[in-house]
């Protein structure tokens, strides 16, 4: 490991830390995660604080990039992969679709943005309507981010622009739905 900032902290590797973070955001309790990892919560707390500080001090962003990559691979972590939150059958199907259908992922990303813009808790809205929790959503988002980075590296900017435009279009569509549900926008009553 050439970058010393990537060395484990008290035995907690960056992959461990990223996977724990992903599972925490999916709603799994920290005590259960520490048990599965075989570490005390006190060890995790200090390791967590130090991993955050390493990301801050790393001017190359390698730690942050790796964290994102590992966050998306939490489901493969040897000690944590069996820790799962309960998902509905519909949630499972939607999660599968989210991971394989980029249009569906961009649509839900746009919807989530629009929900926040209209004062809703976007993550909760996705959970309520599609059965996908924040941690699962973010794990899939990291994978699509890698796909996009690979496209950009190959100079395939058209695809990236295409999906960015699609997400924007969906954000506007959902924005209109949220606005309608709230009785319209303030601007509806303004005439110039």
């Amino acid at each position, binding site marked *: 490991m050439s970058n010393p900032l990537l060395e484990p902290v008290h035995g907690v590797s960056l992959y461990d830390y990223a996977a724990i973070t992903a599972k925490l955001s999916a709603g799994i309790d920290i005590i259960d995660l520490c048990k599965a990892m075989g570490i005390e919560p*006190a060890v995790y707390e200090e390791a*967590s*604080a130090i991993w*955050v*500080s390493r990301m801050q001090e*790393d001017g190359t962003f390698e730690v942050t990039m790796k964290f994102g990559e590992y966050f998306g691979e939490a489901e493969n972590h040897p000690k944590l992969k069996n820790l799962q939150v309960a998902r509905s059958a519909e949630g499972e199907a939607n999660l599968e679709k989210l991971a394989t259908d980029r249009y569906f992922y961009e649509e839900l990303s746009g919807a989530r943005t629009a929900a926040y813009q209209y004062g809703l808790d976007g993550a909760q809205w996705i959970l309520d309507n599609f059965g996908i929790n924040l941690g699962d959503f973010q794990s899939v988002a990291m994978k699509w981010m890698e796909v996009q980075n690979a496209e950009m590296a190959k100079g395939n900017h058209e695809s990236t622009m295409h999906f960015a435009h699609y997400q924007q279009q969906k954000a506007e569509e959902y924005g209109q739905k949220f606005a309608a549900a709230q009785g319209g*926008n303030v*601007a509806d009553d*303004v005439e110039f």
Partner: protein
Amino acid sequence: MNSFTNESVATLSTLYHEDESDHHQGYHRLKSAVLTQLASIQKKADDTLQEKINELDDDGPWESKASFYTLRSNCSDRLQQFQERYQACQKMIEATEQPDYETEYQEILSAYEAVKNQFRCSQCGGPIVINQLYFTSTYITCPACQTQNTFNPGSRAKQLEGLGRSLAEQRTAHLRQAYEAIPSQLQKIYNQIHALRLSLHQQNKTVAADTENQIAQLQREYDQLNESSPGLYEKYVHAMFDEWNKINPAMQAEHDRFRQRMIDDMYKYK
């Protein structure tokens, strides 16, 4: 837009202080909704100018082409004024977020004091003196029976590292503002120099010489100010990190490496 902003400011200001959710989530959701509504008014103004004015043909029923272009120019000016009012409203909405980090910090210290004073050895029950600030759970050996205990500083103390940076930034905001004001000050001097240069070819030699002196003086001010920028940034960064270290000394080594990274980045991307 003004009445919507004023009503929203009152509601948001109250909500910010009353919202006890983590990180004022309820407040932030409402603020996001308010900003979206403000943006919808601005967008309608933009669309109206585009549809009703910019798409008009100058061959239309106008007294003259000049009157058409005057109308269009006036409408653009009006939109510009509206845009400025919109930005002022945005700032008023943003200003409703008034975190009181000093009070939060004092509350954390009080809560920590209570937790540490009640800490007893799990084996022998003897009191264990905690003489430093821990913001994560920590192993502490009982001085009487040598049992290893886990000291949990409590949920409030665990927020110390994050809050510490915000508080340090708040305490040193005047230094950051001094640094951030430099680009606009440079622009102002540049504009003065530019105006003087433009006036040069309308002046006789005597007046022009005087103007050249003024330009040279302004250029010196510009250069000095420009050269002071890195120093002001370093002054802010050092002051901010020194404060952060005082608030959470447990992370001093990590803070200092972060401090160095910020300074290195400034010279790298300058």
